[in-house]
């Protein structure tokens, strides 16, 4: 699993990346009450808005950590937004993206680097 500075995680299998928000991000957001996901088939570039997560207090953007095409979205998080708080790095995933360039994922942080990054915040 790899991590972005915007607190998304990426799990690459073949050329398909499963993407969600990290446990740290879910904790910072607080109780998630609404998740807006893109439509399958949408093409995104790194840094584009990918999804929106709403807590009781505020709306937060989730940015695409890699470029590619959205192949699948997780209805479980739009139907039951609390899933994001319960298992952010598991069944609370957001989308699967067929990545344009698998090497892009290697440019993201590994867990140790991400944990170290969190210490700087």
């Amino acid at each position: 699993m790899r991590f972005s500075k915007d607190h998304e995680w990426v799990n690459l299998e073949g050329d398909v990346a499963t993407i969600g928000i990290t446990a740290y991000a879910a904790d910072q957001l607080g109780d998630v009450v609404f998740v807006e996901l893109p439509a399958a088939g949408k093409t995104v570039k790194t840094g584009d808005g990918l999804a929106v997560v709403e807590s009781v207090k505020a709306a937060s953007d989730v940015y695409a950590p890699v470029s590619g095409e959205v192949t699948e979205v997780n209805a479980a998080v739009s139907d039951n937004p609390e899933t994001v708080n319960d298992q952010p790095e598991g069944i609370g995933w957001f989308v699967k993206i067929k990545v344009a360039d698998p090497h892009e994922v290697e440019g993201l942080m590994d867990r140790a680097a991400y944990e170290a990054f969190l210490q700087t915040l």
Partner: protein
Amino acid sequence: MSDETTKFTVLHAAHKALGARMTPFGGYDMPVQYEAGILKEHLWTRAHAGAFDVSHMGPAFLDLSVQGGSPDERHAAIAGLVEPLVSGDIAGLKPGQIRYTLLLNEDGGIIDDLMIGRPVDPEFQGRLYIVVNAGGKEVDFSLIGKAAGPAARLDRADDGALIALQGPEAAEVLAKIFPGVERLGFMTYRRFPVGRRSVRVARSGYTGEDGFEILVPAQNAGDFWNRLLADERVRPIGLGARDSLRLEAGLPLYGHDLDQTVSPIEAGLAFAVSKKRLKAGNMRGAARIAKELAKGPSRLRVGLKVLEGAPAREGARILGPKGANLGVVTSGGFAPSLGAPIAMGFVPPARAKEGARLAVEVRGRAQAAEVVALPFVPHQYHRPAKPSA
């Protein structure tokens, strides 16, 4: 992050010890939530009792400089100093009564909303207990001080703690500490002794629940807070849940739902306007307010239930069924007690009728919404039956 201008309430260390997440609000570093989180804190308050530190607000006492005459004469004199600034009938306050009122500008716009109380004790007549919003403190106190001139002295009491205890179990909890507090009616207050000092307990709040707002001297604040939290029915509640609770209760928030352009009638706060003083033309902005009262204002604050999609937050456009721009959301979010998004905002009166189908625009998309009666969640205020005269 705090800087040299950030202020701290006397309970700041207690919040940190409870694991609160802090945020700047009204110039203070305040708890936005504790470990339970906004959703649980909100629901706990509706079911049990929540303790809120609201010491960022501005409590003060206004006292006549020269105390002469009967208690009623002294009250009339102090009320007469403040009334020219506000919308309400301050002279008509009964001993121990508190009134929600509005500081008005010359156009009838709202400078702030505030509470003004009359002490119950005969020896303290000629005094008003005033509580203004955190953000309005400097302006409000300066206005009131100037209006009173040498005839009265304004003593700020915002160096102590103002603690709200809200929820269906609040009265039972507080009665263990201050026996007799359960007999206070909604919007009344009295003093209770704590050692050689006094706390002021008001039966009021900002959640729609029964509850109290308690002014505690700084020296007693920590002990009192800990004593409240020692009761298993009480949990600490942050400003996040305070906001979602007041939104469900349909209560406006200054700087969001109310500002200097909004009149009391537009805001749906006609109850806070003294009809007697208005009729006499003895009120700032009287011409506009009287006209709006008679003929209707050009916009009205309404409650909106968002029927689909994401919460509509402050600034979201309110649209008609055919996409016409009607107004904007001034407060909005997810209502934990309803499990759905709700909002308040201003629309023309023709669109303000209950059941009207409108839309709110979130991220460029129109989502169906319906005008509903305020409050969204019924108020549970403690209004004892009046003894028959």
